[in-house]
């Protein structure tokens, strides 16, 4: 193990090159529904157990399945009402299990990016070739079912190896959601090619709010509004990014959906908000900001 893997350089939140979003927007806002498939009887991985209880863990398995049977529909309708497209963090096996969900998202022009094959298959203990094979499977599956070329990546169940980000860049991934170090896109240091991080946010993630911090929906709504207000204010100086990562099995419950919808209403009710997708943020950043950012980082390092 190492103390740091050197994926990025220190870049203080002061005197950075200004980011200008399209049409003078102050903030790029994107919503990332995680659409996941958890297996009832996943094979064991020696580093991490998929379920806490002896198999079958009916309570946990069925709580996840709620997202696909019910929650996703509720989330999708709420997003439709506020004109928000999703950037789907996809366990790609879902294309095979539940193509109906994929079609509903594709019909709405949503982006699909990778969240691995299943949320119960971790990259721990894979060697590089196995991990490459998994990445290729993801690209092939998304292409076959949606026609889209995967641009973004959030590692399945947030599991990693030291080389994971290098392999992603090598495979052509444009942006990763796995780094939580910044409120603006940032270059990522990889062996070959180029890669950026797009802010995804654990703090705004419904699972962190509801399952880890265990806060009530109204408090989650207040946190989202406060987060938006601050990033919107700072975005007048240089463009910021805010993401709401969500899960149909969490935010899609009847006791939580109203808070999520009110958050969407609040954010999209402001002027100068670029309501967009992960891929569009990455493309804009590469076209307008990436080179400048790399030069700036050299200066910071030199100083």
């Amino acid at each position: 193990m190492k103390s740091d893997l050197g994926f990025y350089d220190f870049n203080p939140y002061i005197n950075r090159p200004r980011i200008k979003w399209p049409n003078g927007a102050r903030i790029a806002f994107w919503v990332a529904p995680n659409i996941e498939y958890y297996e009832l009887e996943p094979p064991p991985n020696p580093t991490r157990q998929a379920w806490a209880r002896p198999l079958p863990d009916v309570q946990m398995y069925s709580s996840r399945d709620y997202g696909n049977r019910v929650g996703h529909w509720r989330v999708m309708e709420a997003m439709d009402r506020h004109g928000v497209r999703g950037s789907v963090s996809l366990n790609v096996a879902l294309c095979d299990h539940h193509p109906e969900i994929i079609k509903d998202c594709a019909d709405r022009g949503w982006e699909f990016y990778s969240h691995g094959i299943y949320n119960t298959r971790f990259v721990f203990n894979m060697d590089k070739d196995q991990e490459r094979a998994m990445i290729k499977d993801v690209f092939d599956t998304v292409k076959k079912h949606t026609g889209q070329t995967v641009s973004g990546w959030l590692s399945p169940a947030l599991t990693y190896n030291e080389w994971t980000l290098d392999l992603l860049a090598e495979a052509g991934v444009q942006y990763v959601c796995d780094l939580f170090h910044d409120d603006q896109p940032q270059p990522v240091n990889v062996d070959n090619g180029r890669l950026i991080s797009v802010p995804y946010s654990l703090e705004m993630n419904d699972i962190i709010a509801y399952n880890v911090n265990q806060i009530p929906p109204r408090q989650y709504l207040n946190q989202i509004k406060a987060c938006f207000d601050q990033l919107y204010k700072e975005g007048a100086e240089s463009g910021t990014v805010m993401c709401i990562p969500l899960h149909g099995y969490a935010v899609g419950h009847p006791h939580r959906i109203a808070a999520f919808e009110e958050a969407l209403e609040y954010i999209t009710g402001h002027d100068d908000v670029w309501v967009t997708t992960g891929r569009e943020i990455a493309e804009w950043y590469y076209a307008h900001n990436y080179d400048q950012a790399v030069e700036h980082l050299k200066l910071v390092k030199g100083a």
Partner: protein
Amino acid sequence: MAISDDYLKYPKRAHGMDHDRYDWSMIQDRPPLKWPGDAKVAVCVMVALEFFPLDQPAKPFKAPGGMATPYPDLRHYTLRDYGNRIGFYRVIKVLDELGVKPTVAFNSVVAERYPQLVDEVNRRDGEILAYGVDMGKLHHGEMAIEEEAELVRQSVASLRQASGQAVTGWWSPARSESMNTLDLIAAEGIEYVCDWINDDLPYPIRSKNGQIHSMPISHDIDDQTIISGYHQSEDDFVDQVCDAFDIHMADSKTHGGRVFTLTIHPWMSGQPHRIKSLKRALSHVMGTSGVWSATASEILDAFKKQG
């Protein structure tokens, strides 16, 4: 050493579920349901009557709410038993006042120890369902099928004997099942199971002994989940119960009849400082027009007639 290449094989990666217990179905694609009297939302309040034994085993895990300190943990044992002595009577009074027909899940040991509780349910024409033997006797994937079959038999037979009811519902303590549980309960004449928290509506579920149904009995808005599990306030509990109900009511207007269920633990909601919160939440539900207060079986029967 790298993990076996089998870890990158996905034999169940195909349309539908990765098991054959139930069919894949999205709620928005199902035909709209109708309830008696053109009600919009069927309301089922599930009261959980639990016995947490002092010698509750730690393996394979303890049901939430169980013994926590070294033996003998009188503190948790008595606080849970409080629900059966005091809490239940406060809760049932609220249900009476609001006209809620009770569905009561009994650990069979509770009915054996405290038959007076069975009488209270029977004289209200409430439904009794089987909730295992006690909170220390979990059903789980590492147990022998014979051992589990005996637990199921014991629970169902005891409750039928104690109540004189058909006892057609099953809820596994801690919602924990083995791969055999559905087959074993169906063999004992059980018609619905409350362990699967993946839907807002009933749906058919397969067993080797015939088809039964899954009933959508709440977990995420339970008093125990919100107040004990998440350490949220009583007001937060009321908000979430009311919000959930309002969404079901709204959904019913565009998508057909819905089911609202609320699971109550008398050792929690029956505390003197919490009972008013339960009443506030249920007053909102029962004070809305278009609700049908029913037992789980009555809801299931109305559902099956439409299938």
